[in-house]
Structures are given as C-alpha cells and as structure tokens.
C-alpha cells in the first residue's frame, strides 16, 4: 500500500506554508520524498487564484490591512478565497502518476474525502455539478483550488469548521455569489484537531494509502512569534 505522510502544522502563516508546499512539491517531483498531506490553519488571509478576478475582492488594501487580513496572489486554480482561524486547510502533495493521471478524478476524490468527513459529524454534504467544492444545500462549506506541475499536486482545500464567516464579506468566494457555511453554523461543535484526524482517515481510504503522522515541527516555531 502507498504511504502518505501527514504533517499537522497548526496555525501557520500563508507564506510559510506556501514555501513548505513548494519545497515539498519540488522534492516530490524529483522523487526524493513521498506523498504528503499538510493539515493546518492560516491566520486571516485572502488569496487570489491565477485566473482570479481582483473585482471579486470587495475591500481595498487599506480596509484589509486594517482588518488584519493579508493578501496573496497565488498559482492555484480558482478565484479569490478567504482563509482564517477555524478553517481546516489541507494541502496534499501527491504524485498523481502513482494514483490516476486524472485531474478530474483527483478533485472528485478530494471532494469525496470531505463529504465522508462531514458525514461522520452528521452533516449531509454533496456536490453541485460544475461548481467544484463541497456544498450543504446551496451553501458552500469547503473550497478547492489545486496547482499541478508534472502531475504533482499542491494547494488543496479549505473546510469551514468554526470559521468566523463574517470575513467572507470581503470577497465573492470563488467568484460565486452563493452563501458560505461552516460546521459550527450547522450546529456541530468540533475542534480543528478532531476534524483533521477524521479527514486524514477518510483521505487515506479514498486515495488508498496508509496515513503516517509526523510530529509537528513548524508549529512550534510559529508560536514563538
């Protein structure tokens, strides 16, 4: 069975996580490391996908910086999105050649892991055709945006666990004017750590790999700041 190393990074700056992702993706392409799943949480940040439209960012730079939100243009797919405390962010760094050479299947599988995770907490979530992501009714609970280089994935998903949804007012999430929701809003009280454990298990099942947990390294450094 293939193995996938899980790293739980705690709350980590977007830039730092990006650097780590890029480093792992490069090493994965070279074949010097195996598959990884990074699970973490970001401080308030708004990111813009490669094909995103700045118009979907509703607030000016000044308003964002006053609200303590940073802003990053990135190379992932998708439009503008918000990350912040209370959101489980997952960055799988997988070589799809070892699984299926199919980006569509990959995105559907990430969605499936999220749907299964939510089901375990009693939330019935699903897909809306043509609108990548995971939805509860017509409310978006998890967003997906992926970058692929030589079949190695980076970026990933963001699941609203107990996110303060008011921060989404600064953007049109993924360019869609549909509402967002969170597990907390749907009445589920779960910590990020719990959800992250459950997710890793489902991810392993869907992608048919054994999940190996690694001790948190970066989280400690981050807290010192």
């Amino acid at each position, binding site marked *: 069975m293939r193995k996938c190393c899980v790293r739980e990074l705690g709350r980590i700056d977007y*830039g730092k996580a990006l650097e780590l992702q890029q480093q792992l993706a490069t090493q994965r392409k070279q074949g010097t490391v195996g598959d990884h799943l990074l699970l973490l949480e970001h401080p308030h940040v708004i990111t813009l*996908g*490669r*094909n995103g439209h700045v118009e979907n960012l509703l607030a000016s730079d*000044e308003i964002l*910086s006053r609200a303590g939100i*940073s*802003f*990053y243009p990135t*190379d*992932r*797919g*998708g439009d503008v999105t918000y990350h912040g405390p209370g959101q489980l962010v997952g960055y799988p760094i997988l070589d799809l050649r070892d699984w*299926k*050479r*199919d*980006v*569509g*299947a*990959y*995105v559907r599988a990430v969605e499936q892991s999220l749907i299964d995770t939510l089901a375990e907490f009693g939330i019935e979530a699903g897909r809306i055709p043509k609108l*990548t*992501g995971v939805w509860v009714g017509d409310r978006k609970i998890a967003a*997906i*945006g*992926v*970058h*692929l*280089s*030589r079949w190695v994935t980076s970026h990933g998903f963001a699941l609203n666990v107990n996110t303060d949804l008011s921060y989404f007012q600064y953007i049109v999430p993924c360019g869609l004017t549909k509402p967002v929701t969170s597990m907390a809003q749907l009445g589920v009280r779960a910590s990020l750590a719990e959800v992250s454990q459950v997710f890793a298990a489902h991810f392993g099942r869907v992608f048919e790999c054994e999940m190996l947990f690694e001790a948190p390294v970066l989280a400690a*450094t981050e807290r*010192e*700041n």
Partner: protein
Amino acid sequence: MTDVVMPQMGESIVEGTLTKWLKKRGDRVERDEPLFEISTDKVDTEIPSPAAGTLSEVLVEEGATVGINTVVARIAEEGGAAAAKPAEPAAPAEKAPEAPAAVAAVSVAAPAEKAPEAPAPVAAAPAAAPAPPPVEPEAKPAEEPAAEPAAEVSGPLSPLVRKMARENNIDLSRVKGTGAGGRITKQDVEAYMAQGTPAAPGPAAAAPAVPVAAPPDASKPAAAPPPAFSPGAKTKIEPLSTMRIKIAEHMLLSKRTSAHVTTIHRVDMTKVAKLRERFKGQFQANHGFSLTYLPFITAAAAVALRQFPLLNASLDGNNIVYHNEIHIGIAVALDNGLIVPVIRGADEKNVLGLQRAIVDLATRARSRQLKPDEVLGGTFSITNFGSFGSLVGTPIINQPQVAILGVGTVDKTPVVIDDAIAIRSICHVSLSFDHRLIDGALADQFMTKVKQVLEGWAEEVL
C-alpha cells in the same frame, strides 16, 4: 517541427483554458521545461515542453479555451532553428511557406475570425522573428507609408492592445497578429515596437507631447529631458509603475532638499563575523532564520544615534525636530523598486529581536504585505547594498530624515595591525548626511561610535 497540444488531463475532461504562456514566440525552450499553464476545473497545471528548440508559433492565445489535442503551438527543433538563424539566402525561402501554413491552421481552428490582412512584406518580418534586420530602418520607412493607413486589422482587439497602440502611436494594421485567427496580441505589439519600426504616420505629432506634458514646473525640475529617442531607433516604451513614479519623486525631492555629503569609514568586522559564524546554526535551528551582519550594524547605529541625537532629527524650516524614539528604516529591494519598512524602537531590541524584525519586514515587503504604517515614521535609515556585492555606496537620504547609513560587503582583507599584516573581515560603511544640519566632524564622531561598537562587540551582548 513539433506540435504542442492541449493535453488530456483526465477522462472526463474534454477541454482546457490556456491561462498563461511561460515562453514567448522566438524563445528557446528545453524539453520538459514549463511552457504554458492551463486551467481545468479549479486545477491549474503547468505543461512542460515536449521538445527542445525554439517556440516558433503560438496558435492559441492566453484566455482561450480549446479542446484536448488542439495544437496550441509549434516548436522548431535544433536543426531547423539553427538553419533559420543565420541570414543565409536559403533561409527566408525555407521560412516563407511556413507562415501561411500557420495562418491556415488558425483559420481552421477559428473560422469565425476574418482572414488576416494581406501578408505584406512588413507582416513577414515579425514572422521570421529570429533575425529581423533592425539595423536598416531607413530602408523601410520609404515603403511603409505607402501601406494603407486605415488598413483593416484582423480579429477583435483587446483593450490592452488598443491602449498600447494609442499610447505608442502605432498603426495596428502594420502589426502582424499571431493570436488565434491572426488576432494581434500584446506580444505582437511589443515585438513590433522592439523592431524599431517608425511610429506610424505622425512621429512629428508624437514628439511635442513629451515636453508639453512636463513643463519646467518649479516643483518638478529636470523631470523632462528632451526625448532621447528618435523614431526608428531601437527603443521600447513602457509606462512607469506607480511605485517607480513615487520612488523617482522621492529621490529627486531628497536631492533638492538636502545638502548631501558622504563619509566612509572602514570597520573591522572580525569579531562580529566570528560571533555570526558561531551562532548562525543555532539561530537557524531555534528561530528558523539565519543571523546576518545587519542586526549588528543596526544595533551599533542605534547606540550611536542615542549619543548623537542630531542624526536622529529632522529639519523643519528653521527648527530642529529631535525625535526621542529611534525608528530605523531598512531598505528592502523589490523586483522593480524598493521600500523602506521601519523597525520601531530599534534601540530597545537586541540582536535577536532586530534580526527577527528585519526578516519579518523584508519577507512581508517582498510579498507586499506590509501595513501602511510600517513604512512610515522612520527617523534614520540603513541600506545594505553589500548584499548585492557593492563595496561602497553614497546613498540618498530618506526624507525627512537627515542621514542614512550604507553598508558594503564584508570581505576578508589583508590589513596592517601593529606593523604586521593580518587577515581581517573588513566592511566599508558610508554615511550620507544633510550638511545643512550636520557637519563633517559630527558625522565622523557618529561613525567612529558605530565603528567602536562593531569592532569591540562583546559576546554577552548577543
């Protein structure tokens, strides 16, 4: 010729959007080097080049969505490209049939588009990209004005292309389009301008615009040198970024405001270098960043600023404004500019705190995440051009401050100590100061203090 196609990214995926070309027409590519990016279903993918050679044809424009296996570009392999480059008589003949072929392929892909306007002699030139003869512009103007000024431009034009044409006074009917259906892309306009073809019918009309736009206004002297380019010269015109405009204004303002003088001192950094060597690894392990010379120099400057408060002051009319707090700005180089974020209360921080602040500010400056107030309120600045290899510099004061410290490289150098030659880590540190307020004697006392602190650095201070 190798065809580059929109790849099949998965069973259910029938088309993809070409989001970005990572190479331009005429660029060399290596096999497997990222060539373009596509987007399918929230997944952005970099597509590597299938072959090594020259990107000779770009058939699909950025933003277009095409079915899988559509040819998006062609790569001329080693042999072919090499033959085409030298302007041998054989080459143009060989090249010629190729261009129409490309056009045909495009028309098939996009039948709705109008056929490109007559592949006139002018149009042929950019197609043969590798070796256009820009050396003989005289030869062309004679025949060019003959071309119909209002000639049809094939395909719709993007607002960007229209804007570029307007600003540079380019007659688009003369620009060969390489986009889908012969559409003119930004790259085509750039290629046309780079070629140095005369700027359309009225170069005379364009020239006066420059001096008029910048009259000899008292607030902006010397801003408008006479146009240094002439039509037909090898020039490329690009508007300044907002940041660049601000930097330009700020630099001129400072030169006009302050009476700049620079003094240079040689500092023996051997003690600091040894400390740095010893603690570098530990810093990396414990704090996640390296230990550089800059926090030591910042600390030394802070000590000297406390002793000589006139260097931590501003001049306001006929008043000296002494700043009680020491806020040191650190110049950070950006891709096409610079920014000076400020370490507040620099004298209250130790080397660790200063290094952390420097790393944090520099990182966020580069990712453009500084908050507005983090670049304001500096009372003194440091610029570390040594990191780019400069020995000595004469920096411009960051207004409304009155002095700036420039740090050169730290190099092992033979020096004479007590009539013996020793190898020491030497750094040249320069101070540009405003002679309206500060005299040379004071500036050198300040520098002597900086030097003393650095040369006598005791380990416990770390």
